């Protein structure tokens, strides 16, 4: 959106739910112009992330085998990725849960279901705030 911030280009999106994964990918690509790589599990995210080299990772909290926080911890073990900001998506979004996720070191926590029209903008704003924007 502006020259003042490093551009957000590549997003890794992790969600076990195929419908939502597809909606998120399309919404982020169409409305945001981002390059999105979608993964259906934490395991797949760990395998694909280093090669994809994302600017930002979006992570669903509740997934069947490796859940969001587990995936988060494992991603942080990968040297090439340990400073890539990670944003959680969660359906619960209760204050205590959000707090716990932020304490893990998440950049932000977004509520599900998200609005496909605005999710790209929301993600952009989180990215810009991460880089010092006070809007």
């Amino acid at each position: 959106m502006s020259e003042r911030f490093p551009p957000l280009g590549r997003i890794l999106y992790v969600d076990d739910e195929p419908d939502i994964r597809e909606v998120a990918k399309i919404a982020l690509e169409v409305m945001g112009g981002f390059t999105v790589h979608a993964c259906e599990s934490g395991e797949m995210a760990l395998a694909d992330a280093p090669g994809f080299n994302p600017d930002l990772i979006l992570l669903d909290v509740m997934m069947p085998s490796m859940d969001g926080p587990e995936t988060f911890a494992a991603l942080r073990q990968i040297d090439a990725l340990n400073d890539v900001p990670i944003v959680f998506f969660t359906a619960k979004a209760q204050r205590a849960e959000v707090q716990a996720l932020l304490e893990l070191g998440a950049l932000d926590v977004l509520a599900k279901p998200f609005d496909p029209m605005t999710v790209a903008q929301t993600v952009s704003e989180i990215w810009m705030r991460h880089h010092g924007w006070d809007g």
Partner: protein
Amino acid sequence: MAGTVEDLQRRLAVLRDQFVHELPQRLSRVGALKPRTNGPWGDEAAADLRLLAHSIKGSAGTFGFTELSARAARLERLIAQAMAQIATASADQKRAIRDAADALTNAGTIDSSAIQPAAPRRPGRATKTLYLLDEDAERSIGLIEQLRQYGYHPEGFATPEALLIAVAELEPVVVLIDGSGEDTPERAIAAVTALNADRDPPIPTVLLAGRGDIGARLAAVRAGIDIFLPWPAETSELIGQLDQLATLDDHAPYRVLVLGADPVEANRTAGLLEAAGMRTRVAPASLRILEALADFPPDMLLMDAALPDCTGTELGAVIHQFPTWSNLPILFLASAAEVERQLASAHASADDFLVKPVAANRLRAAVASRAERRRALRALIAQDPLTGLLTHRAIDRRIEAEIARAERMDRPLTLAILDIDRFRSLNQHHGYPVGDGVLRSLALLLRRRLRRSDLIGRFGGDRIAVLLPETGTDMAEELVDRIRIAFAGMSHGGADTMVSASFSTGIAASRRGRSAAELIRAAELTLLEAKKHGDGAIRVEES
């Protein structure tokens, strides 16, 4: 791989259809996994069902199937609670889970609305449907009658329960609550709270209050009541407020044309506004903006200040040169440096710029407030484009207000309705431009001859209403007669056709207890009598 808002909507629609298509299969799996009346319910089945419910909740929510999503959420929550206890689920818990599973699988058959996707953004509200909650049957009937005259479709309810049932079936554009029977509007406020609990967006509410003190107002504000009117209020005041609420929540969403240097960014901006319930169009290129405006007449234009071919403020100045768009609000998106540059050189104010990057909610608010202002202005100006007189609707409102004033001050007020004689044949024989010219001349003459405090409005066609405050019928008749003579001496038309014209007039006076509609009707009936007497006749209603 960026596309347009329509692109996204189309692709989402495909996914949604797919979801609906596959839903029966998923629901039958819910049925298979739910606990049976007799027999064990294994941990594995519980875990699978929980995951399935979670997945349906998420997908349904994403596609706007709110009821389905809520039912799935309930099932998921119950299973999670049961699984949290180390022992297996109790019989009661299993029964509750089974019921929730059934509610979910039946979502499609029991209640067809459960599976209907939520309306895009705003629930479908019937245009001008108004619900009135009033325990006082007599006042209710009176209000309903008045509201009808202003084009509302009012429906009265005596109890909050009856109101809630009706709202569940069809949401009105506004709910009017008569709390004037109460010293403190407690019951009215409780009704509003019940009405709008969990409703997003809330239904606009107007409270007619028995007291207008700050305590009552505060209580109303806290309850989320939009308009607080101490009763009795002037009808014009009430209608004005209702109109505003009804338009704010209009079925016609704000129309915003977006012009950006970067198509991806322009589309994203448009998407944000669409998500807020506005209609948008992305203009293809700055030099084709006039075509875009004609294609999609907007309430406001949102554009980048830095464009490839010229600056935004330059383009804005060009647009404002066209009479149709001379009042179009324009908001510029610009970097801080660009704002400085263009402020220095152009006729723009800082207020016209939003500094990029702008937060979504600020953008929406800035756009909505400008679009709203344009709409409000258009309604306020309320000028008939042909004659420059007030429009029918505008003069109607003023008549209402003037009647109230005349009654309050105990002063005379007279309404005259003028109708051009043989207007149709004038148009047929000499063409519409001549007919229009006659109408314009009469309008001009009236404006010259009447006082500034007199109100002149076009009642449609060839009919003009003149409202004369502080004037009795005798004086009104004299005044109209002088105008009649002056008008008869004028000729209209162009070089080759010169025609003369006349008008007939019906005059009626305001009386205590007479509504605006009644006064207008009286003047119109008197006009009919005048017409029977032939061209140029003036008749005064007998008192």
